[in-house]
C-alpha cells in the first residue's frame, strides 16, 4: 500500500511516466527506511522489555537509574540506547583464521530476512509497505533465507562451538518450518486467500454472538493450529526452550560466538525482528490482525494500529515468559517434538479443519 501510494504521489508532481521501473526502484528504497526504523525501534523496545521482564520474573529490578544523568536514565530507559552506542563504538574483531568474506557477509544475510518479511506485515488498514496477494506465503518463504546466514556465520568463524551451533540451528529451523506452514494452511483453507489483508478481512464481525470472529475461535481445530503455529514459531526464532543453537551454558554463544560489536548487533536486531514477524503473522492469521477485540467498537485506523501492536506485544511477552521459565530441550528431543508430535498434529489438524468446514461451517 505504501509503495503504491508513494508511486502515485511521485507521479502526480514529477515528470516520471507511470509505471517507470527507475521510479519504482527509488520508491522501494525510500520505503525501506521505515522498515529499518521499525526494526531498530523494535529492538530498542524489545530489549528493554526483556531486561525488565526477566528482572521482575527473577525477583530483581533490572537496569535502573535515578533520573537525568550519565547513567541508565530513569528506570533504566536509556539502557538500550547506551548499549547501541557501545556496540557502534566497539572494536571490530575478525579472527585471523576465519573466512573473511563469509564472516562479513553472514550478518547481512541474517539481517535481510526479517527486513524483507516486514514489508508484507499489515499494521493497519493502510500501513502496509506492499500488499502482496501472496502475503503469508511470501513471509514464510523468505524466512528460510536466514538459515544460509546462520550456517555461514558458524562455518566462517573457524570455531568448533560455532559450527555446532550453526548445524543445530540449521536442522532446527528447517524442520520447524513444516509445522509452521501446515498450521497456516488450516487458516488458508478457511479464508481462501493468501493475502494478509484478505485474511484479516475474513475475520470481520462476530461469531457465537459476542466473540470476535477470529480464526482462533472459528473451530476447535484452528484453535489447536494456533498453538502449533506459536510453538513452532518460537522454535523458528531460536528462543528458549528451543534455543539450543545459542545455548549459553553449553556453547558459549553458539553460532555468533566470534562476533562482536556492530556485527553482533545485526544478529541481535534480527532475532528480535524475527520475534516481531512470528508474532505479527500469528496475530494476523489467528487473532484478527488489526481488528478490535470488541467488534464494532474502537475501530478507527488509529485504534487499529493500537490493537495490532498490543496483540503483537502480548505474544512477544509470552515468548519472553517462556524463556525465563523453561529449561532448554536437547537437540534430539527438539527434533522429536517437531517430527513426531507437531507434524502429525498439524496434518491431522488440516483434515479436521477441512471436515469441520465441510460439515458444519
Amino acid at each position, binding site marked *: 500500500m505504501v509503495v503504491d501510494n508513494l508511486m502515485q504521489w511521485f507521479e502526480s508532481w514529477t515528470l516520471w511516466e507511470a509505471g517507470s521501473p527507475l521510479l519504482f526502484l527509488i520508491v522501494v528504497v525510500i520505503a525501506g527506511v521505515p522498515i529499518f526504523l521499525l526494526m531498530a525501534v523494535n529492538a530498542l523496545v524489545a530489549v528493554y522489555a526483556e531486561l525488565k521482564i*526477566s528482572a521482575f520474573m527473577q525477583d530483581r529490578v533490572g537496569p535502573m537509574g535515578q533520573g537525568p544523568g550519565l547513567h541508565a536514565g530513569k528506570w533504566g530507559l536509556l539502557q538500550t540506547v547506551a548499549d547501541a552506542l557501545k556496540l557502534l563504538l566497539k572494536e571490530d574483531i575478525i579472527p585471523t583464521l576465519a573466512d573473511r568474506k563469509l564472516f562479513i557477509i553472514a550478518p547481512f544475510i541474517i539481517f535481510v530476512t526479517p527486513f524483507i518479511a516486514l514489508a508484507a506485515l499489515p499494521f493497519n488498514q493502510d500501513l502496509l509497505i506492499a500488499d502482496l496477494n501472496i502475503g503469508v506465503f511470501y513471509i514464510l518463504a523468505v524466512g528460510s533465507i536466514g538459515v544460509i546466514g546462520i550456517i555461514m556465520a558458524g562455518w566462517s568463524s573457524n570455531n*568448533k562451538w560455532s559450527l555446532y551451533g550453526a548445524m543445530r540451528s540449521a536442522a532446527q529451523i528447517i524442520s520447524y518450518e513444516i509445522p509452521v506452514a501446515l498450521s497456516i494452511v488450516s487458516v488458508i483453507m478457511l479464508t481462501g486467500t493468501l493475502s494478509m489483508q484478505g485474511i484479516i478481512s475474513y475475520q470481520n464481525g462476530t461469531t457465537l454472538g459476542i466473540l470476535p470472529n477470529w480464526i482462533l475461535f472459528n473451530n476447535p481445530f484452528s484453535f489447536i493450529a494456533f498453538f502449533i503455529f506459536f510453538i513452532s514459531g518460537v522454535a523458528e526464532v531460536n528462543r528458549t526452550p528451543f534455543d539450543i543453537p545459542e545455548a549459553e*551454558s553449553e556453547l558459549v554463544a553458539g553460532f555468533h560466538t566470534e562476533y562482536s560489536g556492530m556485527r553482533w548487533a545485526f544478529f541481535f536486531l534480527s532475532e528480535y525482528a524475527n520475534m516481531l514477524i512470528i508474532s505479527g503473522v500469528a496475530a494476523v492469521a489467528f487473532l484478527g490482525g488489526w481488528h478490535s477485540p470488541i467488534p464494532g467498537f474502537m475501530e478507527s485506523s488509529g485504534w487499529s494500529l493500537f490493537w495490532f501492536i498490543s496483540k503483537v506485544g502480548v505474544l512477544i511477552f509470552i515468548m519472553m515468559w517462556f*524463556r525465563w*521459565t523453561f529449561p*532448554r530441550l*536437547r537437540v*534430539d*528431543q527438539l527434533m522429536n517434538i517437531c517430527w513426531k508430535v507437531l507434524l502429525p498434529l498439524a496434518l491431522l489438524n488440516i483434515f479436521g479443519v477441512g471436515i469441520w468446514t465441510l460439515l458444519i461451517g
Partner: protein
Amino acid sequence: MGIVHGDEMVLNIGPQHPSTHGVLRLKVLTDGEIVSKITPYIGYLHRCFEKHCENLTYEQVIPFTDRCDYISSMNNNFGYVVTVEELMDIHVSKKVEYIRVIMAELNRIASHLLALGTFGMDVGAFTPFLYMFRDRESILDLFEMTCGARLLYNYMWIGGLSHDLPVGFVEKTYEFLDYFEPKIKENDDLLMYNKIFIERTADVGVLPPEVAVSYGVTGPNLRGSGVQWDLRKDEQYSIYDRFDFEIPVGTGQMGTVGDCWDRYWVRTQEMKESIGIVRQALKQLPTEGDVQELVPKKIRPPKGSIYKRTESPRGDLGFYIISDGKPIPVRVKLRSPAFTALSALSAIAEGWMISDVIAILGSLDIVLGEIDR
C-alpha cells in the same frame, strides 16, 4: 590421547566456559554429537594447600581449609577441627557442638542451593538460579551476623569457635527457616517437576551403585544411586546422634535409579532434612558457656596419625593428619569428595551427547577449589 579417527572431532570444553563450575578442562572426543571419550584436566586452581600445611601451625591451617571447598567452608572447618580434636582427645562443650551443627547444616543448605541453581542454569533454566541465590543470601546474612564473613569463615577453631552466637541469631534463624521451607516447594514446582527438565535429566547419566562405590563417589551422588550411606548416621561424629532425620535415597522415581534427576531430588530432600536438624538444634541449644574455654593455648597433638571423615555437602571429606608432637603438622592430606566424583565422569558420561555431558557435570556438583586444593 592416541590416534584420532577420521570422523571424530576433538572438542575442548573449558578452562573458561560458562558451566564448568570453576576452571576445568574437558577434552571431549565426539562423533557428531555423541561423546566417545572424555578426559578431564584439572590443576588450574592448585594452590599447594598440602605443602603450605607443612609450614603452618595447626590453628593457622583452618583458614586454608576454608578456601578448598569455598562453597561450604563451615563443613571444611568442621572436618578438620573434628579430626585434630580426636587426635588430641579434646571434648568440646555441648554448646560448641550444637552451634557447630547449626552452622554446618545451614551451610549445607546454602551449598545445595548453589548446586541446584547452577545445575538448573546449565540445563537452561535461568530463573531458579536467581531464586535460589536470593534464599542463599539470607543464610549468608546469618553467617555475616555471626562471624563477619560471607563466604570464608574461619569459624570453627580447635576446641571451640571464633565467635559466640550474637544476640538475635536464634530468632533470625527461625524466621529464615519459616520463610524458606515453602520456597523449596516453589522451586520444585518450577524446575524439578517441569516436563522439559525431567526429559533432560531422567535416565541421563546413570551411575550404578557398584561403579559408584568403586570410584569412591560419596555423598548425594552415591545416595542418588540408591545406596543408603551417610556419615552423619553411619560413622557418627559430633552430636548428630541427638537429632532425628532421614537419609533420602534415590529411587528412580522419574527414570532409572542413579540418574541426574535422582541426584537433584536427593539434594532437595537433604535441604528439608537439614531444616529439621537446625530446628531441633535451636530448640536444644544450651545458652550458658563460653565457646572458647577449651581452646588450648598451645596446640601440640601427640605423636601419631589419624584419618577421619565427615559429611560435607559433596560427600565424605577426609582428613589424614600425621603429627610428631610439634606444633606444625608433618602431613595434612585432604581427601576431597569432588575429586572422586569427577574421576567417575568418564565412566558415566561416555556415550551421551554434549548437552548431556554438561547436565551430568552439573548434577555431580563439583567445586574445583576442592579438587585442586
